[in-house]
């Protein structure tokens, strides 16, 4: 099933009870796409590659900037100016030359998202803005794939698996209406402690590995993290999917909705810096 070298490389996880050779083979045969190669995407990609996932996609249209480097640990001073997707792909190819890495330097949009995400088993939301989060959720519903979603700002992080299992909710089940734009900060505006994105991105990799290996239960939950609080982690029991949900509900026409939604307008229109960034 596996080349001899893989037994040596992955031996420490293959002797895990409940994982074993079948778990490693599942990782090798699996494909995962990480949308966003920033603070969350970098650590997620790193541990996904190291674990032996067979095929990994990286989608990001941004380029590396000096202000990213305090948290986006796959990029370096020498890759400043390079598209993040390429910089990250290069870095994880060094971590694991056996993983097939596919870099996409494009902004995700309603017209290309379905096609770009369809070839993968699991989707990771490592993005940094509300419109793309709604778009990713809708596409994950349309493609019937689990969406491992992370977010981080200031000293806080949030982790949730959407559209997973029989009854798992989608992003719209939880947040049918987008927040008003003035309530939404970005890492540029509100700041972010690097290690916080590391912890959430790492947890996204772990949850993805659990899903692929069949170790993940299906009870919908949300993990909250606050680096300054005691206790720092809080696990929340979430609602099931909602029959009336516009995206995943019983009568929903998700694909049509994706084609006809202007996600930026839906989320209150572009703030100045989104326009610059081509969203």
């Amino acid at each position: 099933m596996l080349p001899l070298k893989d037994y040596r490389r992955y031996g420490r996880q293959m002797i895990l009870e409940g994982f074993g050779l079948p778990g490693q083979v599942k990782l090798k045969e699996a494909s995962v796409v990480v949308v966003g190669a920033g603070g969350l995407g970098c650590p997620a990609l790193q541990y996904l590659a190291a674990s032996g996932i067979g095929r990994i996609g990286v989608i990001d249209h941004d380029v590396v900037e000096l202000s990213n480097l305090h948290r986006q640990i796959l990029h370096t001073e020498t890759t400043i100016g390079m598209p993040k997707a390429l910089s990250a792909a290069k870095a994880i190819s060094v971590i694991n030359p056996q993983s097939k890495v596919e870099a996409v330097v494009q902004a995700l949009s309603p017209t290309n998202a379905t096609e770009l995400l369809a070839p993968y088993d699991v989707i990771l939301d490592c993005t940094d803005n509300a419109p793309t989060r709604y778009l990713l959720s809708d596409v994950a519903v349309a493609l019937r794939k689990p969406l491992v979603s992370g977010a981080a700002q200031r000293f806080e992080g949030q982790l949730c698996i959407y559209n997973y299992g029989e009854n798992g909710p989608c992003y719209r089940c939880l947040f049918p209406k987008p927040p008003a734009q003035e309530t939404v900060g970005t890492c540029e505006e509100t700041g972010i402690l690097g290690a916080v994105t590391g912890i959430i991105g790492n947890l996204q990799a772990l949850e993805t590995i659990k899903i692929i290996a069949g170790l993940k239960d299906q009870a919908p939950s949300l993990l909250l993290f606050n680096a300054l609080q005691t206790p720092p982690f809080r696990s929340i029991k979430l609602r099931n999917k909602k029959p009336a949900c516009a995206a995943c509900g019983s009568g929903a026409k998700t694909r049509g909705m994706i084609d006809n939604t202007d996600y930026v307008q839906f989320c209150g229109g572009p703030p100045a810096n989104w326009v610059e960034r081509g969203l």
Partner: protein
Amino acid sequence: MASSVSLKIEFGGGLELLFANQSSHKLTLPKFVPISNSTSLSSLSSSNLKDTDTESATSDDAAIPDGLKRVDVTYLLHHLRDHLLKERPELFMDKETVRPGILVLINDTDWELEGEGEYELKSGDELVFISTLHGG
């Protein structure tokens, strides 16, 4: 059982910035409150009701005074907005509920599973209001 309920309130995801930048609050509300969710008389009604209530601790169906209801999450929202919020109420409430993008958690459970605004509060309950994050 007392004539009031003691609650622990937490704000997260940036919402604490609206509440004097303090994430943890302790709060005591009267057990019965106006159906209108008017919070202007809350401390008064609390003392008014003390006698009525103390002996009816175990009889849950004791008569609820006219115009009042058992204190619920909707009332709590109004109380937080009227008495704890320091600025820009539209960033916390929208009509009679929380604004889009806020999740309410009752004892570590999504409030949708607990009846949302109609959930009747009891002493010791912990309510968390969390704004969804978008950064990464």
